[in-house]
């Protein structure tokens, strides 16, 4: 499996690692994935009074592609409104990083984390439960259904 230069750059020099105060009024937290699936992403955004995302942080337990996907979305969402941020699609992330086919689920996870986090920030109601909100069973099935091994 070979990785693109952009992916390696985001893995080796991840942007915006860290945490925001999850109890703050203007911070939204998205926590998706499951340790048993091998990936968990936490994405946080801070929304300014003008409705623009002024800061974004992430922490990710997962493969290099998952880390790079998280890092990339934190860059992309900054300066956007929540509505704009929600238009980011996993296919955009996958294309930008040239994710290998077996890693596409990592970008699905990232897209989902934006959704969840945005919704939470919108509602000014950060929450730690991971199974609440937008993540339906179907999406989890997509995330956790791993492609078959080659040989």
């Amino acid at each position, binding site marked *: 499996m070979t990785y693109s230069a952009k992916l390696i750059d985001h893995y080796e020099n*991840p942007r915006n690692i860290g945490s925001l105060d999850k109890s703050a009024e203007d911070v939204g937290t998205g926590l998706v994935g499951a*340790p*048993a699936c091998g990936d*968990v992403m936490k994405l946080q955004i801070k929304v300014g009074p003008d409705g623009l995302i002024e800061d974004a942080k992430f922490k990710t337990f997962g493969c*290099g592609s998952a880390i790079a996907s998280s890092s990339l979305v934190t860059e992309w969402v900054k300066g956007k409104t929540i509505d704009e941020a929600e238009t980011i699609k996993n296919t955009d992330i996958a294309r930008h990083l040239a994710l290998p086919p077996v890693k596409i689920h990592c970008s699905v996870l990232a897209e989902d984390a934006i959704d969840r986090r945005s919704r939470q920030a919108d509602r000014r109601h950060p929450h730690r*439960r*991971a199974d609440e909100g937008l993540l339906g*069973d179907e999406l989890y099935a997509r995330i956790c259904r791993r492609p078959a091994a080659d*040989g």
Partner: protein
Amino acid sequence: MTVITQIRRNDQPIYLDYQATTPLDPRVLEAMMPYFTYKFGNAHSRSHSYGWEAEEGVEKARAQVAKLIGADEKEVIYTSGATESNNLAIKGVADFYKDRRNHIVTTVTEHKCVLDTCRHLEQEGFTVTYLPVQQNGLVDLDVLRAAVTDKTVVVSIMAVNNEIGVIQPLAEIGKICRERGAFFHTDAAQAVGKIPLDVEAMNIDLMSISGHKIYGPKGIGALYVRRKPRVRLAAMIHGGGQERGFRSGTLPTPLCVGLGEAAEICMKEMDAEAERLTKLRDRMLKGLNAKLKEIYVNGDLEHRIPGNLNISFAHVEGESLMMGIKNLSVSSGSACTSASLEPSYVLRALGVEEEMAHTSLRIGLGRFTTEHEVDTAVEDLVHHVTKLREMSPLWEMSQEGIDIKSIEWAAH
């Protein structure tokens, strides 16, 4: 020093995946060279000296392999590798004795090629018992004893596990099999040349051997087939009737010679090498423990080959770690399945939780591993595990005292 530089150039990563494959020992390559060049005859040509010369090389190698496992040279059959040996041993006895016995016993931590062979035989109407293993990876002898019946044709239990390096109690297993009249097959690909093996003392009836796991070439292996009491097999590859009719096909003379030479070197150097590797392994584990919290060795550390470590680095996903330590060639899970994202079935069988299985690395040390390489690897691992933990939400939670199990992660 010249030997080492032949194995690894300075710009190459440090190779720590000796359970996936081993580099060819330069001494083995040297022994093979004449058979690649001027001694190129067909070992089955009886009409001229090229054939005799090749046959001589093949037979000398057969004796070298036999000696390493305490067998007679007539009991050693060349194959293309351990996968073929495992297939031939299990399907071969199952098919030959199918009118009298139709039950097979194996364990859940066997190599895929044994498990797949057993599944294939289930489709053919055989019954297979897949024994669990204990938390240390070893089979429970009482459970085994209870599973073997007078319908059991063969018990197939690997000598050493390819992921966690644990050594099964072969002599005890052999004794149980002999008492019940079942054949004992062991996939010894990871054990041969690393620990003393004796087919007589251990009552082993069939043993699979691989060339490229003992610093020999790829594409060659062997199957030990006991002659007294005789084990009979139905052949899988038919043709010219070579290898006592068990396995037709022209023998790859240079590969056979390489396997023999590799076996002889292992035999000569086994004791000293085991001591050296044990020291290196302990040094690595000590180095990691000194700098990292929450790391766990999977599988029994005492009943284990010296050159294997399988470690879970809690809260750090194994693939991301592998991507970081790009100067180290290690594997997460077995080489055959590591392209998949499924956590290792071997670790799951030990009761290692899925999230911990995702954080495991297999580190294999071997003949050309140096103390300097071990130290570099420790430094690299510590650096990247620390870095990845800083970006791990699970590590953060664990440091905050949040029990990850208390979180309702969505079902998967």
